[in-house]
């Protein structure tokens, strides 16, 4: 059982993500003011604060219920595109991860399902300068590391590194989705705020989704 994850780790991940969003709120908003409508930090912080408040009310029954709660709260509380995108991520994560304890394979499968939900919802492609530019490399790195036999903690570390690199790689890209797409070439030269919050999400996973030492 030492390699399995449950409510404490899941909750740790979500709370770590909420804390990171709160810490980086102004940075996200500044990034968004360059190419978006300057509300990404505020919106995500409002949504994750609502998630934390819901968790403070008592832990959900299992992982599926927990991530469904997170997704439903984000869908409802985050007004912009981030609401349905992050909300769909967690709703699909809940569905694919299921209610039992998760092992490394479940983590990879659930993350991939969440990211595919973001793809289906937003219809963005790699290189469109969106959160997917952090999430897709993270999934790939996680799966490759697990396939190479690395433990989950190391694999998640590789995923976080890939997410950060993917985030940074959005800087020279031209936006093709959302409000930033109106800017055309003027969106070039700014890191995408969605990819930035997505990297925070993967980094929080690397910190928190660590199986308790048995």
């Amino acid at each position, binding site marked *: 059982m030492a390699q399995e994850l449950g409510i404490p780790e899941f909750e740790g991940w979500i709370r770590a993500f909420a804390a990171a969003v709160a810490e980086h709120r102004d940075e996200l908003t500044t990034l968004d003011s360059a190419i978006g409508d300057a509300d990404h930090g505020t919106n995500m912080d409002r949504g994750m604060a609502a998630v934390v408040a819901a968790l403070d009310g008592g832990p959900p029954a299992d992982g599926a219920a927990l991530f469904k709660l997170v997704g439903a709260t984000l869908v409802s509380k985050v007004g*912009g595109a981030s*609401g349905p995108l992050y909300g769909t991520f967690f709703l699909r994560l809940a569905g694919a991860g299921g209610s039992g304890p998760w092992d490394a394979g479940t983590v990879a499968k659930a993350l991939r399902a969440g990211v595919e939900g973001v793809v289906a919802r937003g219809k963005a492609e790699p290189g469109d300068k969106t959160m997917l530019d952090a999430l897709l490399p993270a999934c790939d790195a996680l799966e490759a590391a697990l396939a190479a036999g690395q433990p989950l903690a190391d694999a998640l570390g590789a995923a976080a590194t890939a997410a950060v690199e993917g985030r940074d790689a959005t800087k020279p890209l031209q936006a093709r989705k*959302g409000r930033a797409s109106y800017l055309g070439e003027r969106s070039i030269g700014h890191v995408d705020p969605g990819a930035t919050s997505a990297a925070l999400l993967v980094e929080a996973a690397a910190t928190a989704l660590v199986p308790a030492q048995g």
Partner: protein
Amino acid sequence: MPRVGLVVVSHSRPLAEAAVTLARQMLTGADVAVEVAAGTDDGGLGTDAFAISEAIAAADSGDGVVVLMDLGSAVLSAETALELLADDVRDRVLLSAGPLVEGLIGAVVVAAGGADRDRVAAEALRGLAPKQAHLGG
């Protein structure tokens, strides 16, 4: 006679409500179920997939619902809302790429006349046609 419902999804509640008022002014006699899902619960700008799914359920009387949305992120929320609906309701819902205000007006008029869902959706889609015909001619 079919009773097709309409849902107006906007980031702005005043915008959605004014659009419905304007569209209803085109009706004389017969009314149409038009629900609004707009704005955040604290009165700000945004959309809420749960509110949209509730609005769709309220507008649905079994003959289908046509949903009009203002911006791209409203479309994402509406698509998320579909996932929250029961299968039979979801199958009757059509998300329209038509113009919010102009599409709503045409859709309301033909829905009040008893058009079926696809006819209402077609009218929403061609909402710009009168302007285009006049200005482009």
